[in-house]
């Protein structure tokens, strides 16, 4: 009888798989033992910040052989809660840790690596290019229902808000709504989906980071101030926020420190940061704290 068996082969392979898992386990365990000097850094969190950090990490690794910086998404909330428990080295976030409920911000160290501007965008059919701040607030609180009421076409207004608790929404509501409650509306999580929905649905309004605004969308000026980088640096354009990279206090990591230094270097700030549509942290003439108070730098 032939010895080749349909059953023994997979079982052998399963054993191999378990062995592999075991190896991986012990490897990982070994690495965490000397966590002070470990060359492996994991950054988790904000999906909006991810492209920048990912590209910077890949450049950083090719310049510093032997280091390993792994960048993943998961959302700002995930990033903050995971860095706070020490599960990951860096937590990427679109919002201040102080603004995220359930996070002890005093335990975290903030590294601001870039500034992102956001602008209201409307579908081109709305016929609106400029709104006053009060009008914008009225639209998002449900006071205005038709574009006619704010000087546009005779068309129903459809608000597409961003996900509750997302950094983009916190920034926008902080700058525009001033504590008022947003109208119940559609909500979308990602910049890409919002971009697609607003460009294809007549009468919609939403808001996006500058880098996602394309020719198919109509960005809206507020009080005749255009949504441009040059207006953000002096706070003429009010809707902007920092991109944060948080670490846990008292748990220093050499590779991470080196990486932050690299992120803040002129090479990255004047190169990659601007290429990806962010604003360099060094260009800012004002600063904002966690309570949304803006002061001169």
């Amino acid at each position, binding site marked *: 009888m032939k010895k080749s068996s349909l059953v023994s082969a997979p079982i052998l392979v399963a054993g191999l798989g378990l062995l592999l898992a075991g190896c991986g386990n012990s490897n990982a365990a070994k690495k965490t033992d000397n966590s002070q000097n470990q060359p492996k850094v994991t950054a988790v969190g904000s999906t909006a910040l991810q492209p920048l950090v990912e590209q910077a990490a890949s450049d950083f690794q090719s310049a510093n052989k032997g280091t390993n910086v792994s960048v993943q998404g998961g959302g700002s909330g995930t990033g*903050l809660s995971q860095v706070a428990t020490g599960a990951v080295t860096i937590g990427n976030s679109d919002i201040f840790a102080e603004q995220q409920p359930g996070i002890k911000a005093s335990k975290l160290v903030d590294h601001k690596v870039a500034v992102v501007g956001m602008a209201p965008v409307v579908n081109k059919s709305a016929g609106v290019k400029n709104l006053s701040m009060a009008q914008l607030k009225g639209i998002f609180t449900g006071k205005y229902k038709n574009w006619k009421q704010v000087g546009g076409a005779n068309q129903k207004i459809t608000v597409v808000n961003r996900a509750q608790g997302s950094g983009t929404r916190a920034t926008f509501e902080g700058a525009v709504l001033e504590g008022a409650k947003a109208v119940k509306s559609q909500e979308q999580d990602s910049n890409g989906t919002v971009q697609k929905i607003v460009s294809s649905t007549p009468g919609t309004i939403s808001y996006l980071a500058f880098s996602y605004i394309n020719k198919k969308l109509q960005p809206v000026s507020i009080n005749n101030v255009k949504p441009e980088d040059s207006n953000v640096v002096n706070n003429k354009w009010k809707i902007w926020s920092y991109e944060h990279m948080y670490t846990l206090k008292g748990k220093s990591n050499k590779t991470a420190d080196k990486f932050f230094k690299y992120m803040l270097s002129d090479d990255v700030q004047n190169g990659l940061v601007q290429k990806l549509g962010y604003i360099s942290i060094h260009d800012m003439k004002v600063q904002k704290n966690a309570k949304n108070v803006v002061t001169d730098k």
Partner: protein
Amino acid sequence: MDDIKTNLTKMTQPGQTESIKDSLTRPTKATHQDMMGKAISYLCIGMVSLLVLSILYFIATKGVATFTTNHASLLDFLTKKNWNPGMLDSHGHPQIGALPMIVTSFSVTVLAALVAAPFAIAVAVFMTEIAPQKGSKILQPVIELLVGIPSVVYGFIGLTIVVPVIRKFAGGTGFGILAGTIVLFVMILPTVASLCVDSIKAVPLYYRSASLALGATRWQTIYKVVLRAATPGIITAVIFGMARAFGEALAVQMVIGNAVIMPKGLISPASTLTSQLTTEIGNTTMGTLPNNALWSLALVLLLMSLVFNIVVRLIGKRGRIK
């Protein structure tokens, strides 16, 4: 074969130290094999059960935390219509009314299943009774391909084709239960159809022969005999498809509008349990009420799919062909 031979030679060999009685009562090699085999399969099922139990336990504890550690009211959760777990209402209770999402999830799922069922049955009848060879050659590979398309691609097609078409013909923004139903219908159709095929195939051939011999037409045979006999299997298939639809997230999220409002009609934006869960979970912090409330949504999903499954089993038990 070898085993039998060796066993036989062992038993018949004279002059062996052990008696015939011993060699007959001692467990043979085959018995050992059988024990080993049994052990392997028991080990596997044990591991699988362990995996399943761990995830069920995990979701259950997280989902219950909303009501035990955060002391939110279960009644509020099931009957109120305001979903905003981060904020308190005028009485100081957290706003965790999940009713709109539960209603929307149900409507989308049931509608998608209702639309998909006749099509799936037609396809299955075609593939088994009318043109078995052509049918399985073309449809089987297509079904296998469709399973592998990422749901975000379905969502994208829905967003670029289905939503504008609905907007044009039915008005509104195009986002809503109708768009969700259409996308889900396409997504569950392959699953439901292939399960229907299985159940119709399981109807014994002599049922058909008997019916045809009585002078019934093909349609009479299909309708009065084959489909009747296959009914429990078909219902199982549809419920299985419903369970799939209930758990689908990424595609539905893109076309349903994602607004936690009681649906007013088929074309007003709404939100399902899964779409809300997927949108919000990355933005909340572990252990806080907003996060726990989302896990409660997951628990509802889990319980619902449990109910679907139990229904399937009951139908299967009742309607088994004897």
